[in-house]
């Protein structure tokens, strides 16, 4: 079956969530959100919380509850990104330059400087795979990839981009190439990556989405995705925004 770039990324991330009891997804993350909903529909994820959705958000204690759940170990997987991500798994959500005198300023840290430490399986997702985004060392460490001597049950699990999937090796504190997306060459990944990474002798290709995954995405799961991410579902699957949609 033919599939879109978004569908490949969704199915790739969904695979990384298999076996997680509770996956939480932040705002403005339609591809990770769709991946969590897909894996839930396939039975590999117990529960999905999507912030600001009507149906996938059983939260009644306001803004604190997500973080309280994370601190207690009630969230098994979460997604973070970064304006810059470096080879040690450090992420930068603040900006480029010498803080506070920044040349480029991004929106801010949000919950990353806590969730990155506490959620066991944090999947980094950054579609743009360039030397601008994947750098040798971030300008500002919003949250570090690894830590010594502190309470840290969580951290990076992998990094998914438009070109490939990296696993994060906690013992080494760096990335290892896991698979190249169909049609992507190893040279392309080297040319566009600003950090050094390990690689296996034989590099796998990221599996194509299975027909059953695509059927789910274009059907029941797509409709669920349209609740928190209406414009995304409209663009990718032509699903129109539910009329009563509020946030």
């Amino acid at each position, binding site marked *: 079956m033919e599939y879109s770039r978004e569908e490949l990324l969704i199915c790739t991330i969904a695979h990384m969530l298999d076996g997680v009891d509770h996956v939480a997804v932040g705002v403005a993350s339609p591809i990770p959100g769709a991946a969590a909903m897909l894996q839930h529909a396939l039975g590999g994820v117990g529960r999905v919380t999507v912030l600001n959705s009507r149906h996938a958000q059983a939260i009644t204690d306001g803004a*604190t509850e997500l*973080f309280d759940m994370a*601190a207690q170990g009630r969230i098994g997987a979460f997604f973070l990104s970064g304006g810059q991500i470096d080879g040690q798994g450090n992420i930068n959500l603040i900006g480029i330059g010498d803080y*506070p005198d920044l040349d480029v300023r991004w929106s*801010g840290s949000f919950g*990353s400087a*806590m969730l990155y430490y506490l959620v066991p399986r944090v999947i980094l997702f950054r579609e743009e795979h360039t030397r601008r985004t994947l750098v040798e060392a971030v300008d500002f460490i919003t*949250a570090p990839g690894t830590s010594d*001597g*502190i309470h840290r049950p969580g951290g990076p699990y992998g990094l998914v981009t438009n070109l490939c999937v990296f696993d994060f090796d906690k013992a080494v504190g760096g990335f290892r190439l896991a698979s190249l997306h169909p049609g992507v060459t190893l040279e392309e990944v080297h040319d566009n990556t600003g950090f050094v990474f390990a690689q296996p002798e034989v590099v796998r290709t990221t599996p194509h989405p299975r027909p059953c995954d695509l059927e789910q995405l274009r059907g029941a799961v797509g409709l669920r995705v349209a609740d928190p991410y209406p414009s995304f579902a409209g663009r990718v699957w032509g699903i129109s925004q539910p009329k009563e949609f509020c946030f």
Partner: protein
Amino acid sequence: MITELVDLVAQIPHGASVAVPANRSGPAIAATRAMIRAGLRDLHVIGVPTSGLQADLLIGAGCVAVVESAGVTLDEFGQAPRFVAAVKAGDIALKDSTCPALISAVQAGEKGIPFIPIRGLIGSDLLRHRPDYRVVDNPMEAGDPIVVVPAIRPDVALFHAPLGDRNGNVWIGKSRELMTMAHAARKTLVTVEALSEDDLLADPKHGPATIPAHYIDAVVHVENGCWPIGLSGHRLTDASAMTRYAHMAKTDAGFEEYLSLAPMAAE
């Protein structure tokens, strides 16, 4: 207690610390426009835990000296352009933080305790730039360094809620951080989407999510008081108005023009 926007704004002094909620939890945007018209200066805006259009408007209008937040964003409408411009120009002081640290600090404020421990943050550059955040040893268990952050007691908590009553009680629904903000703040100023003729505290369905009037210093009935932001479960975000703002606010001139138009200039 039940009053007008002009009187609500008159309770905010220049230089006040003003705690505000995230875009989706009821920012009082109509009140924010009134603050800008009143020419408030040197405000310390505290996002609980983030802010968006509200902080951006106040920053652009020159009302803000300090932004303390875990983020300033227009969400799906992109970056907050006046915030970004002010950071680049060095016009505002930054107290960057992370969501749970801000929420916990306000919870410490409501408890009347001086500080609160928070996980994470160690090894983040955020901590290096926050001398008021400290690392201490867990006194209960050796070998467990942990960050403590000082309590926040804002001068003012300001937000928009779905429902108030004639006694000045305010129902907040699931946005519990509004309750936390009201408990912690020295003064709480609220606009409400609707005014009930019933006593919300006496109603078993509304009571548990109602802020009692004794925490509240002003309630103003402002229908669509978050516009162009929506109110979760009640009103949609006005996407075309947000897109227009995001576009106009990209330049100094565009933002000045935005300020000169209705309903910014008068309403």
